[in-house]
């Protein structure tokens, strides 16, 4: 069973969002997603300053098995990217909710996050999807 964290919000496209106090949020892919993809070997993160629209593809994660788009969970501007992933994409496999974060976004509208799934709803979504 894949791990979910109660303090995170999730999307049906398997991204997670962690809201920080300063109006920014970290974004990554879920434990379930990294497990499905297998060993990651390449991450193409969005450049800092780029404006993202919720639901649009904004990054790519590639494993030995497949390439997968990462979709922006919310609308906003990229304020930081995780440079460590360039040399160590496997951080996403090892620690998807921690060191494996992909980018930080400044939310255009803080309330947007409320529309996302909570951990319980996301776990149920994954369970239903795999049946």
């Amino acid at each position, binding site marked *: 069973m894949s791990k979910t964290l109660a303090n995170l919000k999730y999307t049906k496209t398997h991204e997670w969002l962690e809201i920080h106090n300063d109006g920014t949020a970290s974004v990554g892919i879920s434990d379930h997603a990294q497990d499905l993809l*297998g*060993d990651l*070997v*390449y991450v*193409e993160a969005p450049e800092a300053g780029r404006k993202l629209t919720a639901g649009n593809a904004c990054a790519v994660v*590639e494993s030995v*098995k497949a*390439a997968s788009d990462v979709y922006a969970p919310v609308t906003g501007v990229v304020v930081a990217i995780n440079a460590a992933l360039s040399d160590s994409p496997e951080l996403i*496999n090892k620690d998807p909710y921690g060191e494996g974060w992909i980018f930080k976004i400044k939310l255009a509208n803080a309330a947007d996050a409320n529309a996302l799934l909570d951990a319980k709803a996301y776990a149920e979504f994954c369970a239903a999807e795999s049946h």
Partner: protein
Amino acid sequence: MGKRTPLHSTHLAMGGKLVDFAGWDMPINYGSQIEEHHQVRTDAGMFDVSHMTIVDLRGPRVREFLSYLLANNVERLTQPGKALYSCMLNEQGGVIDDLITYFMRENWFRTVVNAATRDKDMAWIRRQAKAFEVGVEARSDLAMIAVQGPNARAKTLSTMDNGLLKAATALEPFFATKPGDIFVARTGYTGEDGFEIMISSDRVQSLWLALSKAGIKPCGLGARDTLRLEAGMNLYGTDMDETTSPLESGLGWTIGWEPSTREFIGRQALESQRGNANRKLVGLVLQEKGVLRNHLPVRVVGVGEGEITSGSFSPTLGRAIALARVPLATTNTCQVELRGKWVAATVVKPPFVRNGKSCITL
């Protein structure tokens, strides 16, 4: 539910993630494909390859039969136990399958063909065998484990004793031995030293567990694929099939042209293609970050177009690599369309990696 090898429950117990492979439930990995890949390059790993088809061919005219059936020449097999890699062609020179055949005795050759092609291979072999009165028996009673890596032999030998130990210790590369009811060959599909072991299905689990106890880690078909790609070994159905000849598949070296009097299926078609094939199979190394994938378009400006047949990420080189079928005139570089962008790739002669070491200049 797919077909299961005798090691099915063992894979599950060891954390294997099972996927469908040619109708079989096979482990793709036991956690991390890349760790398993490195395990084989640096130490020893084992693969359940019981899904592959072991075929015993028997009869006084079996050598004559194989001399007709196979593009490579079994007359090269003079010492008992010696193995030969070959394509089995149709009349058009297309590859029905690639296989390995072991010369056991003058009236017995053991051949291993792919799992995905089992039915058509068996039908073809049986049809061709009739005229030579050769018995064709698929050995579904046998299971097979491939143990590969620089320490594979030493660790495997540590689990053996008596006659088997003596015979397996003495095995030269590309030879097999069968001192009792266990068949051991010094062959593989990873570019590393090691053994392929055939044993009756009811005993394979205890062998697997003994090998595991000797420090040999289970590895899945995922690592097997990146290992064989690094080793520059073709995968049937991906890098070649019935529409491509060995000459277009980097397998010209496996065609036994001499003696010119030897007739084999597909010879005529190959003779007319010889010297004027317009495509070839080459290795590619991606210069930038990203991963090459099967079927990506390839172009060589001013020369023509091609396609990646097998693309992946090379864990040993830390680069994306591929096998690609390209125009014959292709030289040192080409471009690959990667996610809508044409990017540069270097053209190399496979293998990319052998015996743990890079064979190419990055």
